[in-house]
């Protein structure tokens, strides 16, 4: 037997039971897909991360952000074209759900190849499906779900190859398939390349003569290169590169876009930080597979090493390489880089449960059936709380804030407007709604450094955040002169979901106060002099006009907030920094009553009914925060 494999108690199932395994894997897929579907984001999620950019590149078959992700983009394109449900963003969200659920199903099949019984295999698969990081990536558009599927498929194909070797069959084709799948998996995440030594080690352990057989070697290397050849697609679609990314139109450009990308973020931590990074990882592992799952995994590695040493070395090396590289990556979303390690850990955990079950059944004081039932009750006790916690943490059904805002932006922009959105992946929501969903094909979205693409006389708007009345230079990248005035027009539900009109003249902050709207309500150190609600407009997303007049107190310019019913729908620094700027540059009297005239986007998740609209001022005390509210009217949501 290759690698000295030792038959376990639940030895490889007979060929007749493979259909049962396939049906069970399908059921696992169904469970995962069901969990993810009921918590799936309905459209573009917030915060955007890379989600919006993956949706736009998939929908247009364009170049994704670095490192290219060709296979992912093609799969995304198929989903956007072939699934007749929801909008395009919903369909790419579905790809994540399908990928993650598929990963769980393949983990079940891997576990069966590791001689686990169906219950232990199902435990491993369900532990992965309910792990919180994978779940979080399965309900929004991201690459990690499909990548978990591709990685699991590669591991499964390697184990299938080793089974053929064990039986003495010609296994060249099976190994070539593994090579092809591995090459393809680089198109769902290039970091899979770091796992290659583990796969090579496994091949050498199972059948070292593979490297001395020219045909086998040529087949596997050729198949791997064939899978990797997907990256030749990058130069072909280089023209669609997202501003301000580099363009992979030359060999050097392709290198910089793929293997050379983000090199400053890799191995970014000093050696002294390693224990703390491992502690961080340890916390992530417990959060994902639970403390009992961690213990089961540690135990299971020993069980597998005893029963299937070569297979254990494959999983162990894959795991170590993943943790070693992912803990050294200095990115904000480092937690997701550990998902390949979780794929392996749940298999160890399944082995641990299988080992425990075997021991209790054979040597425990309880009758075998009762012992087995006790072990599976323990497994359920691990799975159910994990599933409940993940569900609470990753329910994105009501995540409509990005879509609500951008739909409203498309409603309020005048014909022929120019909309300067944040660059690169951060500005794709505007492109999605204006051009890809086709809501406003007349709106121009200038790309490239400098003011090119902004026709003279056209109304100019921006969604780039501002500070002290000026647009952030790093995001404007020369497309908007900072000397212009950025007047808030539309407030979405988050700090960076604000539409500004770009004007040459300062806004009319010292507008006269209408007597009918007079309130003279003291809110902390600030006085709300007057307020007036406009009519509800927009469909299907509603928005309401809100005019307020303020007299500042000794606390200076306050943070103000709007609340509809029980939902806080926005918060901002009064006048978005324009008040201070106007005092210095436009002669605004420091004690002037400051007027603000905006439209506020109402969340589409707001329940129908008549809701009070309140305006609040944040009041900082010595040890805490209070918000003082004043009702300014009511809105009727039908």
């Amino acid at each position: 037997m290759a690698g000295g494999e030792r038959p376990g108690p639940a030895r490889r199932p007979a060929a007749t039971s493979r259909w049962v395994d396939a049906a069970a894997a399908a059921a696992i897929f169904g469970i995962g897909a069901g969990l993810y579907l009921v918590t799936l984001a309905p459209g573009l999620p917030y915060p955007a991360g890379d989600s919006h950019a993956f949706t736009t590149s998939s929908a247009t078959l364009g170049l994704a952000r670095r490192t290219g992700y060709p296979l992912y983009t093609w799969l995304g394109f198929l989903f956007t074209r072939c699934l007749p449900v929801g909008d395009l963003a919903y369909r790419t969200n579905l790809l994540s759900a399908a990928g993650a659920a598929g990963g769980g199903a393949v983990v079940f099949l891997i576990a069966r190849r590791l001689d686990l019984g169906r219950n232990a295999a199902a435990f491993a698969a369900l532990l992965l499906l309910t792990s919180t990081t994978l779940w979080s990536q399965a309900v929004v558009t991201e690459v990690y779900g499909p990548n978990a599927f591709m990685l699991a498929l590669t591991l499964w194909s390697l184990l299938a190859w080793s089974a053929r070797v064990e039986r003495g069959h010609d296994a060249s084709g099976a190994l070539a398939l593994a090579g092809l799948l591995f090459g393809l998996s680089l198109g769902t995440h290039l970091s899979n390349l770091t796992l290659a030594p583990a796969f090579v080690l496994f091949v050498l352990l199972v059948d070292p003569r593979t490297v001395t057989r020219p045909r086998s070697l040529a087949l596997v290397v050729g198949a791997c290169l064939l899978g990797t050849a997907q990256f030749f697609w990058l130069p072909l679609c280089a023209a669609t590169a997202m501003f301000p990314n580099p363009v992979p139109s030359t060999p050097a450009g392709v290198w910089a876009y793929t293997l050379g990308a983000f090199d400053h973020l890799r191995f970014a931590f000093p050696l002294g930080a390693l224990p703390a990074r491992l502690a961080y990882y340890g916390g992530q592992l417990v959060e994902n597979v639970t403390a009992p799952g961690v213990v089961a995994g540690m135990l299971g590695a020993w069980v597998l090493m005893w029963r299937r040493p070569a297979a254990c070395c494959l999983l162990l090396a894959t795991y170590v390489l993943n943790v070693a590289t992912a803990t050294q990556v200095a990115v904000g979303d480092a937690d997701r880089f550990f998902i390949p390690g979780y794929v392996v850990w749940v298999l160890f955990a399944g082995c641990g449960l299988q080992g425990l079950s075997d021991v209790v059944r054979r040597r425990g004081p309880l009758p075998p059936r009762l012992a087995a039932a006790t072990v599976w009750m323990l497994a359920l006790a691990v799975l159910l709380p994990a599933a409940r916690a993940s569900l609470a943490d990753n329910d994105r059904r009501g995540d409509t804030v990005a879509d609500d805002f951008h739909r409203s932006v498309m409603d309020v922009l005048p014909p022929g407007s120019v909309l300067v959105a944040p660059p690169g992946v951060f500005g794709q929501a505007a492109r999605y709604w204006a051009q890809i969903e086709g809501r406003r094909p007349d709106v121009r979205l200038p790309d490239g450094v400098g003011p090119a693409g902004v026709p003279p006389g056209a109304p100019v708007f921006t969604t780039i955040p501002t500070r002290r009345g000026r647009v952030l230079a790093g995001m404007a990248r020369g497309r908007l002169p900072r000397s212009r005035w950025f007047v808030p027009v539309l407030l979405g539900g988050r700090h960076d979901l604000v539409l500004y009109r770009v004007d040459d003249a300062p806004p009319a902050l010292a507008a006269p106060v209408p007597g009918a709207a007079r309130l003279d309500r003291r809110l902390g150190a600030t006085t709300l002099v007057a307020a007036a609600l406009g009519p509800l407009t927009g469909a299907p997303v509603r928005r309401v006009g809100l005019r307020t007049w303020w007299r500042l107190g000794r606390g200076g310019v306050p943070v103000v907030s709007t609340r509809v019913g029980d939902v806080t729908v926005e918060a901002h620094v009064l006048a978005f920094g324009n008040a201070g700027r106007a005092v210095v540059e436009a002669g605004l009297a420091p004690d002037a009553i400051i007027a603000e005239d905006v439209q506020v986007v109402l969340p589409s998740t707001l329940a129908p009914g008549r809701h009070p609209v309140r305006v609040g001022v944040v009041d900082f005390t010595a040890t805490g925060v209070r918000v003082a509210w004043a009702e300014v009217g009511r809105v009727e949501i039908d």
Partner: protein
Amino acid sequence: MSRSTEARSPADRGRALRLLGAVVLLALQAGGLGAVLWARRDGGQSPVPPALGRGPAPDQVVTLEFFADDALVVTTERGLRTLRIDEHTTVETVGGAGRLSDLRPGMMLVIWWRAGSSGRAVVARLGLIGAEPGRTS
């Protein structure tokens, strides 16, 4: 190939692999646990937030969105979360000690926390990443 290698059976190879694997596994598990315990010996806190320098990860990096009574509503990668603040909450900036009144919507915060006596997380320290709202990358 030497005579001794030729004579080595798959069972022998399996035994050797099992022994070697066990040593590696023991080293990895002991090393991993040791590193975690080493890192936790001082509470696991880094003197420098990672976004300001290159230290270990903090508990979480979030963006401040709204205020509520004795609470901050922040955006995480998975949506809005509410952070309770109390008299133990402290604010630090790159330049030194800060105040709650330094906080503005859109600021990115590095949060360290500990479990409160009730089991609910309370913010122990808030580190402001610069003072500029909006994304840093």
